[in-house]
C-alpha cells in the first residue's frame, strides 16, 4: 500500500463528507462552506495524484485551483452584500 494512496483515501472520504454537508445544508452558507472545503480538497487531491502518477509537471492544475477557487467565494460575498444593501435601501424608502 503506497503512502500516497492512504492520503488519497483520506482526501476522498473527506470529499464525501463535504458532499454530505453540501447536500444536507441546512443553510445556504453551509453549502458554500462545503464548496470551499471541497475546493481545498481538490487542490490536495490533484497535487497528490500528480505525484502518484509521476507527472509532476501537472501541478499547474492544483496551482490554478489554489489561485482561482476563492474568487467564486468572494463573488458570493459581493452578491449577498449587494442584495442586502438593495433590501435595506428598499426598506428605508417605504
Amino acid at each position: 500500500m503506497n503512502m500516497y494512496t492512504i492520503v488519497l483515501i483520506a482526501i476522498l472520504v473527506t470529499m464525501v463528507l463535504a458532499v454530505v454537508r453540501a447536500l444536507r445544508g441546512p443553510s445556504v452558507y453551509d453549502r458554500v462552506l462545503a464548496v470551499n472545503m471541497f475546493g481545498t480538497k481538490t487542490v490536495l487531491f490533484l497535487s497528490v495524484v500528480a505525484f502518484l502518477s509521476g507527472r509532476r509537471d501537472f501541478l499547474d492544475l492544483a496551482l490554478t485551483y489554489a489561485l482561482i477557487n476563492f474568487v467564486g467565494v468572494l463573488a458570493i460575498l459581493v452578491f449577498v452584500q449587494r442584495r442586502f444593501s438593495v433590501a435595506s435601501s428598499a426598506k428605508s424608502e417605504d
Partner: protein
Amino acid sequence: MTILFAVFLLSLLVIIAVAIIRAENLFVALMLTTIFSLLMATNFFILDAADVALTEAAIGAGITTVIFLGALALTSEHEKPFVAVPWLALPVVAVTAALLIFASFDNPRLGDPEAPIHQHVVPWYLEQTPKLVDIPNVVTAILGSFRAFDTLGEVFVIFAACIGVLFLLSARKPSETRCTAPASVGLSQHLIPKVAGRFILPFIILFGFYVQFHGDFGPGGGFQAGAIVATGLILFALLEGEERALRAFPRWIMMAMAAGGALLYALVGVAGIAMGGKFLDYSVLSSDPIAGQHLGILLIEAGVGITVCGSLLLIFHAFAARESF
C-alpha cells in the same frame, strides 16, 4: 487503483447531478454546480486529459460561478415549487438512459488501445508533431496548427456570443424610473479580502501569462490563459467595485481585445496566403518551416488568449453593470 478512484468520483458526480436538479433554491443549485465542475476536472485529470482539466479548472471554479451569480442578482434565486407529475418526461428519459446504457456495451471498453478512435489520424499526429511542428505538447500542436481552422471557428463563436450578450444587456431598459440602487462598491469595506486579493491578483495575472507561454511545453494555451487572466481582472472588479474597475480597465479596451484577438488570428492565416502558402499554413512565415510553425502558433495562441480574456470580461461587466430593479 486509479480506476477505483475514478469510479468513486464518477459516482459522486451522479449524486451531485441529482442534487442540482432537486435543489429548489437556485443559489444552492449553483453551489452544487461548482462541486460538479471540480469533480469533472478531477475526472478529466485522471483520464489523462491535463489540458482539458486545466480549462475546466480555469472556467468552472471562477467564471461560471461569477456569471451565474450576476444573472441571479438580476432575476430571482427561488424556483417555484415543482408540482406537475412528469408522467411523459420520466419514461422518455428512462428509456433514453436505458438505450444509451444498452448501446454502451458495443463501445470499446475504457482504455482499449485497439479502439477505432486511436487508429485513424491520431497516430499520424503523434508521429508527425515532433517532425513538423516540434513542440512537446501534441494537444497544442493539433489545436494551433493541424486543426487551426477549427480553432478559428471556435474563437469566432466566443466572439459572437460576447456580441450577443452585449446586444441583449447593453440596451437601456424602456420607460421606467430607475430605482437608484446603491452603486456597487465591491468589497472595498472589507479589509481582509481586499489585502489578500490585492496580494494574489498579480500572481493570478502572472500565472495566466505562464500558462499562455508555457502552453507549448505543458498543459496550457490561449483558452486557459485568457480565462485565468479574465478571472484575475474580475477579482479586481469584485474588490474595488464596478466603477473603479471600469475606470482602470475601460470597456473600449475589452472590446478592442475581443475583436483584436480574433482579427490577429485571422490575419496570421491571411499572412500565410500572402507569403505563398495556404490559409493558416505557418510554415511559410519564416525561412525555416519549423520556426514558422513556432511563430504561427505563438501568434494564434496570443490571439485566442486576448479574445477569450476580452470576451469573458465583457460578459461579466455586462451582467454586473446592469442594475437589478
